[in-house]
């Protein structure tokens, strides 16, 4: 097992802190690390794609789980996979697609570990149809503070505390996942432009029959164009829809076309100006309306990929990711917030609106029925701290919440209103982990 002292941040590259990083290669090494951790505790870390400080632990131990990446068993008939928690979704996709199975939920691209996806109960563009990640976990093994390894099943308090539990109940060592059947590696994609927020919400509410749906909102557009967006909906292409000649290679992994790498760099350099330019390009270059475009799975999900180091391109400091959710019927709040962001002329990037369906059982799990807007902002914007605090207030007043895995700045006292099941979570932790063997910068900052 390798050990080193490193300075770590989340994907947003704000608030670095230093920890001892252990890289266990076996469950026993992981258990030894947890039992041997000092008074500042330990926390599991996957690929560090959480934007905030969820997977770092100042002055303590961090278990880098990426060396525990074996796919242990596959049931090709039932679509079940048993794998270590450090396995990436990218790898699982490569292994399972040729067998006719696809990831049930794809959060933020491929570079996410199974442990991270459970720890943040990640959700994807198909949340309304598929729910969040934990719904597809039939069991996992959890290394708890006492050094024991427990097998945890859905429907138990430990499962519900761990799904979205940010690594604070223990270290997930392995998991059994249920995949969804597909017959081709192609997606049929519909694209349409909405010329303002009302138009967008109407289109999204009207709905279609495609399970994947997201809208890229241009939050730099103001006036009547406020909230204009490109709405993308998609579904897997069934094999019978392909011409006979293509059916033999229906499940072949098709690489995605390369994306130009230069644009995000510009975004860092020129801030507001390039934000509106990029948003403008994004909006104008999308077709007004196109249906049934065929794209490879890679190309479709590539748009969300957080490729290694792609967060380093901004020379002007870190990013803050603001991801919140308000329930159905709270469109007025959503409208107000979108309007405020647009008027504030924040150079926001990658703003995505999704409509979430039923929430999972996770006590600190983020997704719930309603509107989920997520956007990136440069952390160096003057006045941003106060601005986001005031958005939190609107979100909380509407009964909504801010995502904890993505958070790097929430006010601790705003938490209780957003996560009503927090007392249960705290009680379970107090019982399971009385000495606080599992801690993270996030848990300290928010007193979780």
């Amino acid at each position: 097992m390798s050990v080193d002292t490193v300075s770590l941040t989340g994907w947003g590259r704000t608030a670095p802190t230093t920890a001892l990083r252990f890289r266990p290669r076996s469950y026993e090494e992981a258990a030894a690390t947890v039992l041997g951790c000092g008074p500042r505790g330990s926390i599991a870390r996957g690929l560090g794609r959480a934007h905030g400080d969820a997977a770092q632990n100042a002055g303590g131990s961090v278990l880098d789980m990426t060396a525990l990446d074996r796919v242990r068993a596959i049931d090709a008939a039932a679509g079940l996979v048993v794998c270590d928690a450090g396995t990436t979704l990218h790898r699982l996709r490569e292994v399972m697609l040729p067998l006719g199975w696809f990831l049930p939920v794809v959060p933020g691209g491929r570079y996410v570990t199974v442990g991270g996806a459970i720890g943040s109960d990640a959700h994807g563009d198909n949340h309304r149809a598929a729910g969040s990640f934990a719904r597809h976990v039939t069991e996992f093994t959890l290394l708890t503070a006492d050094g024991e390894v427990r097998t945890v099943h859905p429907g138990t308090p430990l499962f519900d505390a761990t799904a979205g539990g940010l690594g604070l109940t223990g270290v997930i060592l392995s998991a059994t996942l249920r995949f969804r059947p597909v017959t081709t590696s192609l997606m049929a994609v519909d694209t349409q432009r909405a010329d303002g927020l009302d138009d967008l919400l109407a289109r999204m509410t009207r709905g279609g029959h495609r399970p994947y749906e997201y809208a890229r909102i241009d939050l730099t557009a103001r006036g009547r164009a406020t909230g204009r967006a490109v709405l993308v909906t998609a579904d897997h292409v069934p094999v019978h829809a392909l011409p006979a000649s293509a059916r033999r290679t229906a499940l072949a992994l098709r690489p995605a076309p390369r994306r130009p790498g230069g644009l995000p760099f510009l975004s860092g350099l020129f801030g507001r100006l390039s934000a509106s330019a990029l948003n403008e390009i994004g909006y104008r270059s999308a077709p007004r309306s196109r249906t049934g475009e065929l794209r490879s799975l890679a190309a479709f999900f590539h748009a969300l990929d957080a490729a290694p180091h792609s967060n380093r391109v901004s020379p002007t400091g870190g990013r803050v990711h603001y991801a919140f959710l308000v329930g159905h019927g709270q469109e007025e709040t959503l409208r107000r917030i979108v309007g405020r962001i647009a008027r504030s002329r924040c150079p926001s990037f990658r703003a995505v609106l999704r409509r979430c369906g039923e929430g999972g059982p996770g006590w600190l799990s983020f997704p719930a029925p309603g509107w989920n807007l997520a956007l990136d902002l440069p952390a160096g914007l003057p006045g941003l701290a106060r601005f986001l605090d005031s958005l939190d207030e609107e979100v909380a007043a509407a009964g909504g919440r801010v995502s904890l895995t993505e958070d790097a700045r929430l006010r601790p006292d705003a938490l209780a209103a957003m996560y009503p099941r927090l007392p249960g979570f705290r009680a379970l932790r107090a019982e399971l982990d009385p000495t606080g063997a599992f801690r993270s910068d996030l848990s300290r900052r928010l007193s979780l």
Partner: protein
Amino acid sequence: MKDAFGAPQSLLVLGGTSEIGLATARRLIAHRTRTVWLAGRPSPALEAAAEDLRHRGAYVQTVAFDALDTESHETVLGKIFTEGDIDMVLLAFGIPGDQERDEEEPLAAVRVAQTNYTGAVSAGLVCAGALQAQGHGSLVVLSSVAGERARRADFIYGSSKAGLDVFTQGLGDALHGTGVHVMVVRPGLVVPDSAAARGTGGPLATIPFTRTPLVTTPGAVADAIVTGLRRRSETVWVPGALRAVMSALRHVPRPLFRRLPV
């Protein structure tokens, strides 16, 4: 823990009655700071400062701390860190001395040097060690523009700040990569916020620099510190224009510099 904007939740001010220190504490309490430790020589002023911050919503404790009693620093400061993480330490104690008297009474000059330099080295090292152990935090040290180039009018104070400044820069380099952030703050002449608001008339007019834009206030220094935390700056000049002014003044030949009205 500090948030993405570098706003600390807990603060330790060394020199608990310092105008600049308290102005900074007030700013930070308006952001995320909930716990404040004011370390200083026990006095009614120290208690009054604590009371004021409590009214602003922070949980405030005072601790007896004397910069000159370096023997006690390890115990006194170490104890504070055992009670919980400190996200930011503000080293704000210091005495300007009285140049004329200090030249005549070497022991008085020694006191300036010991407070501003030796005392700060000792307290700075103790805090740096504790911050390093917790793996995060900022150490913010109030240096002074007076340490940048010797002036006839205040070189005893200036030399103590020069030592402190170099010490802090070196400490920052030593702690680079440990998660601990060290920031040197170099204010120009600091006049009370109220005097600055009243304009440059009155008794202040007799102080050199008062008419120039190089005068600042505790509030402005506090704002610069908050911005510096957000940017994780290593050096902060207040006002910002001092950076350019001083880099020019640094190269003025001594015969000429002696005759400048600075």
